[in-house]
């Protein structure tokens, strides 16, 4: 403990404390979140499919994912002989990293963001594209044709869908006039008929495009073609087992949370809500409620739609979403210019 005190009181000072709280807090919450989201997904799937989902472990099966995680921890880690060993082992570690960094940039309350940066939004957009690198590494290093196909699909998909996401984000930035996420939330909201409304109301098209884009970026159905089970068996993670497989699973659900939180921050007013000014602790609660709303819609879509084909996915991005997002950006700029 004394070493810890020394570190906190020493030259690192406030930075050390922030680092410690940030790492422990974010890691802890993200782990909890993954367990919760997997349980939620199975419950949502169950109820959409006229069944109950997990019911046995704990009340309504809440501990099911804990049990599953323990099972995965106990599993033997198999490394196929023909893999590119270094890259194969690195990929599951790397897949988690960008998401972690993004999580630390989301503002949780009026003065609560683990890292408050003037260009936070740009850093987030940059970092969230890095996950695909790990996915491609996994696919390539596995030395399995299904995995390579999955990896290649993933790269093409993320490259295609980053553009509309970025354009949608830019539209909001134009309205808000800042790329600092904290200011983006706290700045006075745009007024529609005299009532202040979140950016999602004045930029509905951008919100929809952003939602579709993050669904594709997180490889969620109907855009789950990199791991399309019925075509590519397991896609990029076909050759991974045990905790290494679990890391990809972790990353997917963490990604959902983080991108959902970004969506909530951008379009649904982030941590702002009734009485939040008076009770600062409500900030994170509002943010999480909005985030899980976005995540729930993603789950809802997953358990309702069939999967798109690869070329349909690409033409949807390049021929429809990108022109629409561009048009929306230009229209936003024109309207703002006229109003100014």
């Amino acid at each position, binding site marked *: 403990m004394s070493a810890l005190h020394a570190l906190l009181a020493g030259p690192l000072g406030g930075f050390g404390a922030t680092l410690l709280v940030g790492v422990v807090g974010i890691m802890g919450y993200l782990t909890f979140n993954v367990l919760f989201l997997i349980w939620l997904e199975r419950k949502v799937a169950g109820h959409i499919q006229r069944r109950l989902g997990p019911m046995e472990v704990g009340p309504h099966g809440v501990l099911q994912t804990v049990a599953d995680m323990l099972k995965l921890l106990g599993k033997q880690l198999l490394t196929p002989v023909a893999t590119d060993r270094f890259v194969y082992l690195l990929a599951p570690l790397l897949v988690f990293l960008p998401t972690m960094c993004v999580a630390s940039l989301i503002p949780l309350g009026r003065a609560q963001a683990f890292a408050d940066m003037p260009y936070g939004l740009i850093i987030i957009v940059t970092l969230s594209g890095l996950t695909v690198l790990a996915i491609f590494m996994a696919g390539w290093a596995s030395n399995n044709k299904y995995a390579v196909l999955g990896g290649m699909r993933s790269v093409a998909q993320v490259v295609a869908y980053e553009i509309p996401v970025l354009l949608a984000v830019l539209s909001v930035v134009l309205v808000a006039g800042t790329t600092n996420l904290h200011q983006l939330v706290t700045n006075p909201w745009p007024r529609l008929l005299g009532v202040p409304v979140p950016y999602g109301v004045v930029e509905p098209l951008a919100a929809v495009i952003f939602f579709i884009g993050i669904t594709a970026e997180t490889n969620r*159905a*109907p855009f789950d073609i990199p791991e399309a089970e*019925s075509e590519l068996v397991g896609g990029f993670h076909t050759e991974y087992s045990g905790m290494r497989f679990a890391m990809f699973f972790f990353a997917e659900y963490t990604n959902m949370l983080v991108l959902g939180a970004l969506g909530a921050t951008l379009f649904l007013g982030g941590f702002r809500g009734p009485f939040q000014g008076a009770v600062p602790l409500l900030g994170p609660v509002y943010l999480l409620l909005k985030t899980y709303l976005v995540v729930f819609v993603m789950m809802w879509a997953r*358990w309702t739609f069939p999967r798109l*084909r690869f070329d349909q996915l690409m033409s949807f991005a390049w021929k429809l979403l990108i022109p629409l997002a561009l048009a929306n950006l230009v229209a936003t700029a024109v309207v703002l210019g006229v109003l100014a």
Partner: protein
Amino acid sequence: MRTHPPTTDPLDTYTLNMGPQHPSTHGVLRLLLTLRGEEIVTAEPVIGYSHRAHEKMAENRTYAQFLPNTSRQDYLSGMIYNFAWVEAVEKMAGIPVPERALVARVILAEFNRIASHLLWIGAFLLDLGAPTPFLYCWDDREAILFLLESVTGSRLTYASGRFGGLARDLDADFPRRAREVIAKLRARWPEYDRLIEDNVIFRNRAIGVGVLTRDQCRSYGVTGPTLRGSGVPYDVRKAEPYGAYPRFEFDIPTRPEGDVFARYWVRVQEMRQSVRIIEQALDQLPGGPFLEPGSIGVKKRLKLPVGTQYYAVESARGHYGILLVSEGGAEPYRAKFRTPSYPNLAVLTEAMPGTLVADAVAILGSTDLVMPEVDR
């Protein structure tokens, strides 16, 4: 969606073994795909992984002993195969069948056909990446299986046919339960239409994909819903009516496109026609014995007259034929089974080249293969 001219240059392409262990090859089919990127250059089905020599087994068993084998050829519409064997033997031996048994067989077989189609819809949508319809279809199918179980005692591999009737009678409560199941099925149809047929992603994945022309189908001997999806109104129940089918009114749904969507649509409509048949059969279900009095049953050694005979029925997958050659003994000299999935699989080599891997899964799923039936 062919983006490049087809090529077989080994430096340009690679082979991918899809199966025999793969989530979408429905059992143990192996597809040898030559791919260029994601585009299929050639597709070659490799079969035989579940070959159990049913035809050879038939030569070493009495006609009654072979009864349980029949429903294990196609475990999804086993009732139809079971009755086909029974009817083939009856026809050759000249065993009379009471009216009640004839109509009851139609009811059971049509319920089995609906169950098979329901399972297909679920599995097919699973291939397309939609897991939810699967559970709905299985819920419906479960109701049918309960019903069939109450009559036959088994859920999947039925052996309830007897030479001269049925093993057990339909009980007095059966018509009521059957009508309940039908009402349940009917209530679900609009839901399926909204969830599947009207879904824009499903339509994009299915329309215009995997087109089989009439001529391709005919040259490969394709039958069943796959053939009817290519616009040929061939159905054994109408073309060579057997059993009690001539007395019921029903249509043969066909669609000219020959694509994956047409095959889906035909099967959905067929379920509705089957319900039509069942309702008429329930109304007309006569009384009387369910097994010809003093019939041979399964205990005695049945000997068929010397000769050769072909008997065909419409299974859930198409034209199922039994060629029986008897030399007068208690066992057939030769039994040849013409199973519909075999040609339906062969034609895929024509439909797959030029499509993408995802389409291959959709096309494969759309032909409704049962691999044990291909291999026999």
